[in-house]
Structure formats: structure tokens, C-alpha cells
């Protein structure tokens, strides 16, 4: 059988157990069928350290060039990792670097299985969380007040103009926090959300607390509405999808009673909290896909989970592990399908569909990794090692091809 040809995508290798799985997926599931055309970047921590993290920047720039990338999970170093890997310094998260280069938004979507019932009984379709991963409390300045005094908010313009407001006249100790966001970042977030909604043909929900935060959250609301009205309204109507704004508390109440099947755009903190809630309620973080979408239409796919360090240490000891590779497989299928869409390569898109079906079909047949056995509510569930599971998927895929 002739291998499927494809346009170039950016391949970003990663760390630990996911790096092992990455190669297994390529060898067993992709290379037998696809003439993989990738520009390879090794984002494994040793090479990032060797290149002073230049490789992360180059990978981000490459995604801008080729518009599609697929990334393996990577380590974000902390003090312990600096020591473990003898790093020159505590490099930034490559995800943050690439996100900054692409100015993109991360969309996380669960992969649904018939045998893993969501904790919320009415959820029938995936709920995609779009988190505005910039600013707010994650870039806040804060300190503790030890005694009485006046806290003021001061802005000094470039021209020397100042604006000042009293935050609170403290009569006792307390805490104080100042945070910010930028119109440009909110605009990029909005564009990414609207584009991804059109791309996936799903309704877009957006929520803030603008009735309380009449300047800060109101700005988010107004920017989204302005961009929607001026640039996306007609396209949404043609696609038969809707943009729906509501208060965050109302959104939570609706989400918990909904059937799913939409994108929920959240401010940074809300997205942080809600993505964990949604992934847990749908089953497992191991079954969450993640895609970074830039406002100008670049896509980077990866698994939402980390590098599965504990399994890696066992792997190094020579033990077999049962690490769930589904989200990593879906990162590849997402990237291949997007490349196919952009290039009009139907064969590649069909292959991506088949690989996803083979993966889910294997699980529906009762063959899965240990983490899913614990959640499985179907008739039978057999726990396989990672290699066995990928082998079972390969077998099913070969039947489909």
C-alpha cells in the first residue's frame, strides 16, 4: 500500500514517558501508513538546556510558518528538575514560550467513551474549555498589609498624567492585590475563540462577572461583542452556530445542566478551575486533548497531560507500564486532520479519522490501559501495557486501512 503523502507540519518531541510513547505512536501507527513530513524540534529538556531554550522559540516560529504543529508533553523545570537535569537555569515552560509567540488560546476537549460515563449525568457531548492564559491574578502584584493605612491605585501615563483611586482605608491588617490585562491580548483571545468555534462548528459561550467588575470584566465582554458583531456574526449565522454571553455564575449553572457540545471561553482563573472540573467530570486528564489556536489561524496540538514522570522512572527500571497514550494519539490525529483540511488532502483527513476510530474502538472492545479500567462501566475491561494497547490499536487500524 502506498503511503499517504502530506504537507509539512512541525513536530516537537518532549520528555520522559510521553517521549517514549511518542516514538511508539510514530513507529507503530503513523509511519506504516503516512509519509510523515515533519520539521522536527527536540523540546526535550536536555536539548532545551543545550540550546539555551532557543529551540522552543524556533519551534514556535516554525508553527507560524507551517501553521500546524504537534507537540509531545514537556517538563516545565522547577528547582528539583534543575538539580535532576543539571540545568544551566530554570527555563520557562515551552508551552508558555510558544503560546507567547503565537499569541494563542488553549482549547481543551475531552475524548468521550461509551463505557466512561461523565460524572454529570446530562453531559452527552464534549465541553471544550478555552482559557485566556494571560494576565489577571497570574501576573498580579500583591502583598500583605500588616496594619492600618490607605491603599491606593495609581496609574501614571507616559505623559505624566496620573489617575488615582483609594482601594481601601485599612483599619487593620489585610491583603492587597493589583492585576491587569491588555486589550490586545483580550482581542487575540476573542479571535481565537471565534475562529475555533467556526472551525469545529460549535456554539461559543463566554462568561465573566461584568456586573460586579464594571471596568475590568466589562472590557472583556465589550471586546468580545464588538469583534463578534463586526467580524464573525455573519459567519456564525451561516455555520448555524451561536455566540452566547452570560455571567460566570449563570454559565456554571447552565453547564452543569447542559448536554455539552459547545466551547466555553473563560477568563484565566475561571479557565484554570473549570478545565480541571470538566476533565475530572468527563473521566480523566489522560483523555483530554489540547489545541493552541492563534488569532491568525495557526494550530498546535498536544495532550493536555504532563510527561507521566512516575511511569518513566518505572520504565527506566525496565518495568512495563500501562500509560494511556490516547490523548497523544489524538494530538497527532488533530494535527494531521488540520494539515489535510488546509491542503485539501482528503486522504490524510480520512486516515486521521480512522486512527481515532481504531483507538476508541479498541477501548470499546474492552482493551485499555489501567487508568481507564478503573473508570470503565462497560461489560469487560482488560488492562494492557502501553505497548500492548498500541499494538491492539495497530491491529484494528490495519483492518480499517
Amino acid at each position, binding site marked *: 500500500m502506498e503511503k499517504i503523502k502530506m504537507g509539512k507540519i512541525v513536530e516537537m518531541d518532549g520528555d520522559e514517558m510521553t517521549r517514549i510513547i511518542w516514538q511508539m505512536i510514530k513507529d507503530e501507527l503513523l509511519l506504516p501508513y503516512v509519509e510523515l513530513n515533519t520539521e522536527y524540534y527536540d523540546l526535550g529538556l536536555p536539548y532545551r538546556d543545550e540550546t539555551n531554550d532557543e529551540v522552543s522559540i524556533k519551534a514556535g516560529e516554525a508553527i507560524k510558518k507551517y501553521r500546524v504543529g504537534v507537540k509531545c508533553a514537556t517538563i516545565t523545570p522547577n528547582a528539583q528538575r534543575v538539580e535532576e537535569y543539571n540545568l544551566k537555569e530554570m527555563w520557562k515552560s515551552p508551552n508558555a514560550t510558544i503560546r507567547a509567540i503565537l499569541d494563542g488560546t488553549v482549547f481543551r476537549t475531552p475524548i468521550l467513551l461509551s463505557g466512561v460515563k461523565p460524572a454529570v449525568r446530562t453531559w452527552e457531548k464534549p465541553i471544550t474549555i478555552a482559557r485566556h492564559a494571560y494576565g489577571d491574578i497570574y501576573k498580579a502584584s500583591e502583598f500583605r498589609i500588616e496594619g492600618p493605612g490607605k491603599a491606593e491605585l495609581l496609574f501614571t501615563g507616559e505623559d505624566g498624567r496620573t489617575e488615582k483611586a483609594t482601594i481601601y482605608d485599612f483599619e487593620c491588617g489585610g491583603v492587597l492585590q493589583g492585576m491587569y490585562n491588555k486589550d490586545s491580548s483580550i482581542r487575540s483571545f476573542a479571535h481565537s475563540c471565534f475562529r475555533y468555534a467556526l472551525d469545529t462548528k460549535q456554539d461559543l459561550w463566554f462568561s465573566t462577572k*461584568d*456586573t460586579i467588575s464594571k471596568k475590568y470584566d466589562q472590557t472583556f465582554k465589550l471586546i468580545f461583542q464588538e469583534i463578534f458583531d463586526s467580524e464573525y456574526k455573519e459567519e456564525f449565522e451561516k455555520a448555524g452556530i451561536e455566540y452566547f454571553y452570560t455571567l460566570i455564575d*449563570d454559565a456554571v449553572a447552565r453547564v452543569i445542566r447542559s448536554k455539552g457540545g459547545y466551547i466555553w471561553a473563560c477568563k484565566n482563573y475561571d479557565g484554570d478551575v473549570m478545565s480541571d472540573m470538566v476533565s475530572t467530570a468527563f473521566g480523566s486528564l489522560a483523555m483530554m486533548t489540547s489545541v493552541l489556536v492563534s488569532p491568525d489561524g495557526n494550530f498546535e496540538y498536544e495532550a493536555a497531560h504532563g510527561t507521566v514522570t512516575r511511569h518513566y522512572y518505572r520504565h527506566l527500571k525496565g518495568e512495563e507500564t500501562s500509560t494511556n497514550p490516547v490523548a497523544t494519539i489524538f494530538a497527532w490525529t488533530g494535527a494531521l486532520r488540520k494539515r489535510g483540511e488546509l491542503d485539501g488532502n482528503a486522504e490524510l483527513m480520512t486516515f486521521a479519522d480512522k486512527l481515532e476510530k481504531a483507538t476508541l474502538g479498541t477501548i470499546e472492545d474492552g482493551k485499555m490501559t489501567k487508568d481507564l479500567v478503573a473508570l470503565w462501566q462497560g461489560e469487560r475491561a482488560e488492562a494492557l501495557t502501553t505497548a500492548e494497547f498500541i499494538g491492539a490499536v495497530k491491529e484494528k487500524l490495519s483492518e480499517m486501512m
Partner: protein
Amino acid sequence: MDNNRIENRDGAVTNPVSDNSAYKMPYSQGPYPQVPEWTKNIVISDKPWIPPGEEGNVSVRFNESEKAEPDGLDYEAASDEETADKKEWPMWMQIGVLLMITLVAVALLVANIKARTTSPEEVTTVPAAVTTVQSATSVPATVPSVSGAITNNYTTENTGSDKEDKTTEKDDEPTFAPSVSNGQSEKEKKEIIEYFNECSNRVKAEAVKVVKNFENRSHNEDKLKLPSAIKGVAKSVLESKITDLTEPVEYPTAEAIIARYPVPGAEWSSKLTAEDVETATRTDKGDEYEITLFLKTCVDPSPETGTSRAMDCLDVPTVRDTAPPFITAFSAEYYDCVIRCRVEKATGRVVWSNYTAPVLLKLGLDAGFVEFDAEIGLTFEKDYTITY
């Protein structure tokens, strides 16, 4: 899409607990939680907790309420006999209880407002002859009445809209005071506010007497939201209780002025900032300036925040803390508030002032087996003459 939506839900102040009894999660009967694993109560610290054994009491919703949801997502208990009996209470009894709760709530609000505006031991009624003189002084012919100014400005500055339309805006849409000064710079606005603060704060420091010429109190009928069955009665109660205080009241001592002139109880009258003010104008009137400040919408003020920095506002956190248990939610939104005053150029003293404060009160009410939300719109206008 439609299946996911809960139509007509007013998100602005809605208390999820009062809006959705599923949050109360009975243990053994009635509605099932959305998450089947939730077999015990999860207590959210700022929401009322329904103790075990009383869950059935919350399961009956008032079906004619404006908050009744059209998607059939109600949470009625089906099997429990005691609960079933309560569910079948006749409609007249439900209406009676609703009415009683509303009247008590209104009475509490009125009592609260009266307590803030009247203090017999510190005030003196001005003789009729003085009243005439003071009233004439307080609203000169060249100065339009405050209510007129609001209407005129609104209709001229908001194309294609009028005040009627404005009242139908969604609650999550901000309502701003009409703009009276197109193109006003921030610097100019700040200067006027600082001048106003300076002059206004002289009242409590230097005035020998303040006369409250009148106090208009009105109920904004088009803002009233209640279950239709009791709306008419509640409206007439409001109209009879929310009435004007036409008799002038004199504050003849420094203590009385501090206690009663805005902001009551404070030794200052204004700490407004540019953030609190939508527009500020200062008009040259010969020997005097006339200053007009349109304030920004302020939700749930506490002392020295937003509108409370210059006006007599409810201290919402305190009201919430002291509210009776059947008031499950309370919010106050001050919108289109206006301060007008005249200042002697030579002395920088405020000689006349007028404060207009429309407020939308939003309440969640819960009688245990029946719950609903209410909205009441009130407007207060106070007019003062100051002597030094």
C-alpha cells in the same frame, strides 16, 4: 443549543440556591443531583444550608413566578408523602404567604430608609414663612429642576431612546448617567470633582445651619418585578409607604449637620474620584458656579465606595448581614445618580445642593416552601440650603 439554555434567567443578582432547588440536594427523595456521586450535601459557605430532614420544604416552586423556568427543569419531590401534601397547598394559600413575605420585606426596607432619613431629636421643622423663602432660594428660576434635567439630557444625548426604553434594559447591561459634556477631558473632569470635594467638605466644617428643603421619594413602577399574583397589592403598598417629605427640616447644629447632611455621620461630604463620576460640569452663573455631577452606576455600595463617597446609600454588606432569614439575597444598584450644587465663587462655599439617587433593590425571598425574586425601584431626591 436551545436544550442547553435556561431561558430568561436574570444573572445579575440571582441566588442559585433560590433559583434552583437542586443545589439543596435531598438525600433520599426528590430531585437527583446532576452528579450521581453527590450523595451528601456540599455546603457552600455563603449560601443557606438546608439541614437534613427539611429538604422537602424547599421543593415546591411557585409556578406563576416570573422566575419559573420554561424548560421543565423543576425539582419537585415525588414520593414523600409529607412533601406531597405541601406541594398541593391551594394557590390562594401560596399567594397569601407570598404577599405576606413581600409586605414584610417592603416594610423592612421602608423602615430602614426612614431610619436613615429622619432623626427627631436632631431636627427642627422650619416655620412655614421660612419654608417659602428657602424653597425659592433653593431652586432658582434659571436652574431647571433636577428631574427635568435628567429627562432632557437623556432624550437629547441618547438618540432614539427615552427613559422608558432605558428601564427595559437587561440587568447585566450597565446603565450610565446621560452625558452632558461631550468631549470633556479627564483632566477637566478631575479638576471639577476636586473643586466640588473641596467646596462640599466645607459644609460640615463651616456651615452654621442646613435646611433640607424637601425630600421626594418615589416608587418606580416600571422597575417593579414580582410574581404577578401579588404585584398589584405590593404596588399599592409601596405607593402608600414611599411618600414625599414636603416639610422642610432644619439642622441647626454642627452635630446635626454632620449627622444628616450627605454623607450622614461622616465629617466630610464628598470623597468622589474621577472613577466614580461619569461627567462633571461647572457653569459660570455670575457670582456663583453651578456644578453638576452625573455618577456612574454603583452596585452594592459599602461605606466610602462608589456612590457612597458622596451620597447617602444603603450599606449593602450590613443590610445583608442583618437581613431576616427569609431574605436570601439582597442587592442595591444605584444608577443615574446626580449631584447638583451652587458654589459662591468668592468663598468656595456650597449654598445650595440637590442629590437625586435612583436605586434598584433586588431581593431573593424564601418562605421555606416557596421562593421568588423581587425587584423594587425607588428614587430619592434631597434638596438643601446651606447657611454659613
